[in-house]
C-alpha cells in the first residue's frame, strides 16, 4: 500500500526526520485558517508520479491566490487520479538536493540503502551516481555512514545524512515497509537537511499486524468504495476492459498460464480471478468452496464477460465437491432470473476444467446443468475461445 506524501511526512515527523511546517487541506476554504506564513507550496496528494509537470504543485503568496490554486488542483486529475486532499507546505531554499531510499531487494534478500548526490527530478537522468549499500546483517548506523561516503559526502553532512538514513531504516523495520524514499532531501547553504518529498510503501502482508496501518488501509478501501469483498475472495485483476472472457483458477501461476493460453488463442480475457487459498491475505479466510461460489458470482456480475473458464487443479476439495458448488450456483441463478435493474445481459457461458484422479462423478454432476467438464487444458481453452466467439456474435 502506497501512502500519500502528507501521511509519509507525518511518519517522518514522528521519527525525527526533519520536514517543513505543513498543513493538510481538505477543501479550498481550509486555506483561510492556514497557520504557515506565505509563501506556501500547495501540492496535490496523489499516488502517481509527475504531479509537478502535470500542474499539481503551485507556489502561492496570499490567501486569495491560494484558494484559487487549490480549486484548480482539486479539479486536476493526475494520470486519472483526483486528489482527496492537498498539502500546504512552507517554502524551502535548497542549495543541493539528494536522493535517499531504503528498499527491500529480492535478489540479495536484504534491505538495501540507496543514495545519490543528485536528487529531485535529476535522479533518473544520472543513474551512474546512484549508490547502494546492502544491509547484510542487522542494521547498525555504520551502514548509513558507508552510504554517505559512497555518495561523496564529507564533513558534518556525513553525520546528518547518516542520521536521516538511520531513521528511515527504523521506520522501514518498525512499519514493515517495502520502500521508504526521500526525494529530494534538501540541503541548505548551511548544510542543514530537510525531507522535501517522501514516498512510503507498506508491505501488504504486514498491514494486519500494525493496528495503525490497518486503520489507514481500511479507510483507503472504503474510499475506493469497492463493490466486492475482494479480500475475502482472493486476488482479482481487470486485465483488459474490452475483453469478454473471465478466468477463475486456483493459484497465481495457473491463472497466468491460462491467461496466456487464452490470449495466444486470439481471445481477450477481461478479468482473471485467483481463488487459491495460498494468497488469501485475509486473516479469517473463507473455505475454498465459498470463495469459488463468490468468485463465480463476481464474474457473472460483469456485463462484458461472455464466457467464464474455471480451471482448478488438485485442490483440497475433490472434483465432485467443486462440481457441486458450480451446479448449485447455476441452479440458484436459473431459479431467480436477473431483475432488469441489476442485470440487463444474459449469463455468460461456462467451461469447467478440473484435474483430479476421479472425474466421472463430477462430470455427471455438471451434466445436470449442461456444463461441460473438460480434462485437457488446451482443449478447455479452445472451447472457451470458440464459445466466446459464438456468444459475441449472438449479440
Amino acid at each position, binding site marked *: 500500500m502506497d501512502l500519500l506524501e502528507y501521511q509519509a511526512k507525518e511518519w517522518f515527523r514522528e521519527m525525527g526526520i526533519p520536514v517543513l511546517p505543513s498543513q493538510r487541506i481538505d477543501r479550498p476554504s481550509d486555506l483561510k485558517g492556514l497557520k504557515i506564513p506565505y509563501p506556501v507550496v500547495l501540492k496535490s496528494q496523489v499516488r502517481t508520479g509527475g504531479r509537478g509537470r502535470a500542474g499539481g504543485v503551485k507556489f502561492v503568496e496570499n490567501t486569495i491566490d491560494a484558494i484559487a490554486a487549490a480549486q484548480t488542483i482539486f479539479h486536476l486529475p493526475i494520470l486519472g487520479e483526483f486528489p482527496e486532499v492537498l498539502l500546504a507546505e512552507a517554502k524551502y531554499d535548497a542549495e543541493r538536493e539528494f536522493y535517499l531510499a531504503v528498499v527491500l531487494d529480492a535478489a540479495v534478500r536484504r534491505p538495501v540503502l540507496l543514495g545519490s548526490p543528485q536528487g529531485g527530478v535529476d535522479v533518473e537522468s544520472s543513474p551512474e551516481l546512484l549508490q547502494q549499500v546492502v544491509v547484510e546483517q542487522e542494521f547498525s548506523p555504520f551502514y548509513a555512514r558507508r552510504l554517505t561516503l559512497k555518495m561523496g559526502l564529507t564533513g558534518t553532512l556525513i553525520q546528518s545524512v547518516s542520521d536521516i538514513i538511520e531513521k528511515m531504516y527504523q521506520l522501514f*523495520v518498525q512499519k514493515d515497509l517495502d520502500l521508504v524514499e526521500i526525494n529530494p532531501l534538501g540541503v541548505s547553504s548551511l548544510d542543514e537537511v530537510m525531507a522535501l518529498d517522501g514516498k512510503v510503501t507498506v508491505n501488504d502482508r504486514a498491514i494486519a499486524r500494525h493496528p495503525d496501518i490497518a486503520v489507514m488501509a481500511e479507510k483507503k478501501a472504503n474510499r475506493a468504495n469497492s463493490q466486492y469483498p475482494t479480500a475475502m475472495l482472493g486476488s482479482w485483476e481487470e486485465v483488459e476492459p474490452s475483453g469478454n472472457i473471465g478466468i477463475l483458477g486456483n493459484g497465481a*501461476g495457473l491463472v*497466468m*498460464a491460462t491467461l496466456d493460453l487464452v490470449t495466444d488463442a486470439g481471445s481477450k480475457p477481461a478479468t482473471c480471478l485467483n481463488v487459491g487459498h495460498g494468497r488469501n491475505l485475509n486473516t479469517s479466510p473463507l473455505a475454498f468452496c465459498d470463495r469459488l461460489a463468490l468468485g463465480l458470482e463476481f464474474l457473472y456480475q460483469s456485463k462484458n464477460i461472455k464466457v467464464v473458464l474455471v480451471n482448478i*487443479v488438485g485442490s483440497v476439495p475433490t472434483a465432485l465437491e467443486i462440481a457441486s458448488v458450480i451446479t448449485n450456483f447455476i441452479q440458484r441463478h436459473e431459479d431467480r432470473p436477473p431483475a432488469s435493474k441489476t442485470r440487463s445481459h444474459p449469463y455468460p457461458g461456462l467451461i469447467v476444467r478440473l484435474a483430479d484422479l476421479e472425474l466421472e462423478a463430477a462430470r455427471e454432476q455438471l451434466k445436470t446443468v449442461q456444463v461441460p467438464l473438460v480434462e485437457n487444458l488446451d482443449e478447455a481453452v479452445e472451447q472457451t475461445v470458440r464459445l466466446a466467439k459464438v456468444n459475441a456474435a449472438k449479440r
Partner: protein
Amino acid sequence: MKLTPESKVLIQGLYELSSSTHAVRMKAYGTNVVAGINPGHGGQTLGDIPVFDLVEQALAEVGPVDTTIIFVPPYQALDAALEAIAAGIKQIIIISAGMPPLDMVHLLRIAEATETLIVGPNSPGIIVPAKILLGTHASEFYTPGEVGIVSRSSTLTYEIALQLTTAGLGQSIGVSIGSDTIIGSSFLQWLQILDEDETTQAIVLIGEPGGNSEEAAARYIAEAIDKPVIAYITGRQAPAGKHWGHTGNLAAVVGRGANVGTAQSKLAAFKEAKVAIAQRPSEIPELVKKALKKG
C-alpha cells in the same frame, strides 16, 4: 539435502487449517512423520502422530529430526522456524502463506549463519515421487521417473507434473521454491541439486513475472548445468504489475530498469542462455522427450 523415505519429519502447526489433512496424506505417502507441534495440545495424538507443545520436547522423545514442515499462521512462522533452528533442525519447509518479507530477512540472516536450508515460504514443498512427500503437493499427478521440476508456483507445478505423467514421463523430484519477494532456497540451489542428482536426466524450470531469479537461473544454466533444461515462463500476457497476489515484484524505485521482473525479460534471458523454452505447458513433454533423445 536429505530426501530419503527414512528421513524423520516434524510438522509444526499440526492443527492449523488443512495441515492435519496434509499430515495424514504425507504419512499415507510413506513420509516418516514422527511428531507434530501445537502449543497447548501436547500429549494428544493425531492418527498415530504424537503431538508436543515444543519442538525440543518432541526431539527429546523422537530423537533428531531431518526436516520440519511449518503450517503455522504467517505471523508465527518466523518464531516456529527459529524454534526449529534452536533445536538443531537443518531443513525447514514453510508452507504458510502471507509471511511479511522482513520476517524472512531476519530468518535468512540466522539460517545462513547456522547453515539451515529454508524452502518457501508459501511453498507446497518437495516431492520425490513414490518415495517422500514433504509438503502439500498433489501427489496423485506425479509418477517416479527422470524429470526434475523446479518452480515458483504450486498448482501450475501439479499441472505440469500431470502433463509429464500423461506423456509417460515420470519425475525425479518436484520442488516449488515459492514466489514471495523473499524466499529461502533459490532456483540456483535447486538447479545444482538436480544437476548432481543421479536419477534426474532433464530439468523443467517453471518461472513467472516478478523478481529477477529466472534471469539469474538462465545465466547459471549457461555456465554450470550440464543436463538439459526446459524453461516455461507464465504471465507473458499479464499486464505489467498484475500478478494475482504473487508479490515477487520489486518495489518501484529509482535505478531499477522498467523491464525488471517481466516475463519478457525472463524469456530473453533464457533465449540468450540457449535454454529450450516451452510456449505452453503441453509443449513441455515434447521438449523433454527431444532433449532426452539427444542426451
